[in-house]
């Protein structure tokens, strides 16, 4: 349980760093795009980073609450290490990857009729996903 407490503490510190970095990135992007007149892009930036920071704050508060309560820490430990939950997550991920890949492929095909840029972007995302999958698969094949 002590090891798990340390793991949660590390998660808390990582969240703090992530919150600060995303705030810095947001400010940097806003300054960098100051001269650009694009309402959509400004709105997208503001919305995305606002949502991200709000999520960060909520997550940090919940982690603090968990670290101060032994019962909540034990509940989280059981929830995260429960083997049935892990199996469910594994099967869900497997099915979801397949469905997402097929959906992206169809989207790339159909969007090709309307916009080549969108079609190539979706294809590039799929290629990146395939490369990441291959690298992570190789890693786990070696370590497990």
């Amino acid at each position, binding site marked *: 349980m002590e090891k798990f407490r340390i793991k949660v503490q590390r998660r808390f510190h990582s969240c703090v760093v992530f919150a600060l970095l995303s705030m810095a990135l947001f400010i940097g992007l806003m300054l960098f795009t100051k001269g650009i007149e694009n309402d959509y892009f400004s709105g997208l930036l503001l919305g995305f980073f606002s949502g991200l920071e709000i999520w960060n704050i909520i997550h940090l508060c919940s982690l603090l609450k968990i670290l101060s309560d032994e019962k909540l820490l034990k509940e989280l430990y059981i929830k995260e290490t*429960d*083997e*049935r*939950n892990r*199996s469910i997550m594994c099967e869900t991920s497997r099915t979801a990857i397949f469905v997402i890949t097929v959906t992206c492929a169809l989207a790339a095909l159909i969007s090709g009729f309307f916009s080549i840029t969108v079609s190539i972007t979706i294809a590039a995302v799929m290629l990146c996903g395939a490369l990441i999958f291959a690298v992570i698969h190789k890693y786990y094949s070696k370590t497990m």
Partner: protein
Amino acid sequence: MKNKIQELRKARKVTQQELADALSVTRQTIISLENGKYNASLTLAHKAAQFFGLTIEELFIFEDEENL
């Protein structure tokens, strides 16, 4: 895989939540185990057998798929 978890648990007057806490799993896992919907890993099977003071073979009824 069939098992005797439910009957042993009731005989010892242990609730599903108490058993879940003892085995460090969720109550949903205990429910799935008792219904035979979920097959426990070796570690969980060992913990459950230790809890009831039995061997894994006494607690879980393994049916060879070829003989089914």
